[in-house]
């Protein structure tokens, strides 16, 4: 274990592996398997892909019959086995946001060091892999910049390994890469991270299940109701059609909103490949003040 990796991160609350609570597939015949199951992740990609295809076709038909586009992932998406027992079965209850919900926690530049947005300088040497710059803007549904708010990211290293004791993927840890970054958005809602392109990794939802390369993003917005956690993907990934987490967003236009764009203007000569990804949070329900619109809501500026 390299000494400059903080051991505390290996002692975080443990989690179960993704397959541990996977529910048995309801209502399907036990099809003869043509492979020897290696572990609990025994269902084939072909089985999973058929399920995803069937859901996709039903959605396409509903769209054609006039149903509205589904812009968020389905909470109930059985091909992601862990979702089976973890989705509410009742409709979300409509509520009008009240006072506290119309504000977001405040984060200031004092909370986050400027260097935390560069994931390649957190240790003593250069991480292995393809250096990338990921930049974009965070906007609300009315197109206003979400300024002065915390953006957190986390990701696997270039070999597809997370710094997490429950990640048992036999790919190397990188002593120079932890895969955690933070920044505060600028007055125009902009953010920028320098990092390493993450690798794909296996996750045992089914046999031979691999996640497309992705970076996790956590975003707050100006109101608590805008809070989201999501994932950014890379263009052209061959694993998209096979991945139940990506496919849980059944609408292709909606899926496309999670895929970054290669940006040659962000790409820096002899240094890093650039990707652009803009993030849109929900609309604002509160009347903004001039002060907030220019991103000076935090009290760091005083």
């Amino acid at each position, binding site marked *: 274990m390299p000494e400059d990796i903080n051991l505390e991160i290996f002692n975080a609350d443990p989690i179960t592996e993704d397959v541990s*609570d996977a529910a048995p597939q309801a209502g399907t015949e036990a099809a003869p398997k043509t492979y020897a199951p290696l572990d609990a992740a025994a269902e084939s990609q072909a089985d999973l892909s058929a399920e995803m295809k069937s859901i996709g076709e039903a959605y396409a038909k509903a769209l054609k019959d006039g149903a509205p586009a589904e*812009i968020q992932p389905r909470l109930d998406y059985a091909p992601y086995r862990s979702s089976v*027992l973890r989705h509410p079965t*009742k409709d979300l209850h409509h*509520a009008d946001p009240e006072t506290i919900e119309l504000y977001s926690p405040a984060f200031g530049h004092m909370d986050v060091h400027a260097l935390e947005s560069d994931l390649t300088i957190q240790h003593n040497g250069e991480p292995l892999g393809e250096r990338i710059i990921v930049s974009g803007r965070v906007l609300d549904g009315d197109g206003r910049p979400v300024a002065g708010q*915390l953006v957190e990211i986390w990701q696997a290293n270039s070999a597809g390994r997370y710094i997490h004791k429950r990640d048992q993927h036999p790919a190397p840890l990188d002593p120079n890469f932890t895969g955690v970054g933070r920044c505060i958005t600028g007055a125009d809602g902009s953010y920028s991270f320098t990092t390493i392109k993450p690798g794909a990794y296996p996750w045992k939802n089914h046999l031979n299940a691999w996640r497309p390369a992705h970076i996790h993003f956590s975003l707050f917005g100006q109101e608590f109701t805008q809070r989201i956690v999501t994932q950014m993907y890379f263009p052209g990934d061959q694993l998209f059609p096979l991945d139940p*987490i990506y496919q849980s967003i059944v609408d292709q236009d909606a899926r496309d909103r999670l895929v970054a764009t290669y940006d040659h203007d962000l790409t820096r000569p002899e240094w890093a490949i650039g990707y652009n990804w803009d993030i849109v949070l929900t609309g604002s329900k509160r009347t903004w003040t001039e002060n907030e619109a220019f991103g000076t809501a935090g009290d760091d500026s005083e």
Partner: protein
Amino acid sequence: MNNTTKLTPTPGQTVGPFYGYALPYEKDRELLAPGSPGSIRLQGTVYDGAGHPIPDAILEIWQPDSDGNVVHRTGSLVRDGYTFTGFGRSAVGNTGVYTFTTVNPGPTEPGAAPFISVAVFARGLMNRLFTRVYLPENEEALAADPLLSSLDPERRSTLIARRDADGGLTWDIRLQGEGETVFLDFEGSGRPEGAASGGAAQ
């Protein structure tokens, strides 16, 4: 940017299994130091549809101070032990239990029922869920609350914490099944998010 143009929100995705080295931070669940005057413990367990505790969920709370003020103050990530910012984050442990040290929220308006706003994230949960936890006291305010009064009694009870002997609050979250917690949609235009989630069809 044309401010009248509505942009379509970016979809959410599961927080995944491996947030555990990224999102938690020192004193993340201590909105103020344990043992501080006025501090209480808010605790509970997160359950799945089989009634099993979920060991890999993470909760966030956001609340007014004990006088009902929305403090809107920085300092949640680097706690000094004195500044109350109203925000906290707690990953559940192996047994599915979360804990916050906080204060009883005050009413943000005279006569309003005080509550803490909650966001729930978990592996296997495709998108975060919002909910609220209300204080059990002041029946009159609870009865007048617009959200609580729109729910039938059984569902309503899922949003009200129990007062512990030590003055703390216990409130469990059930993602599915008997006693399923009421989760909220704030969009209020077009199709409810629940319908888009496929929930209506189940």
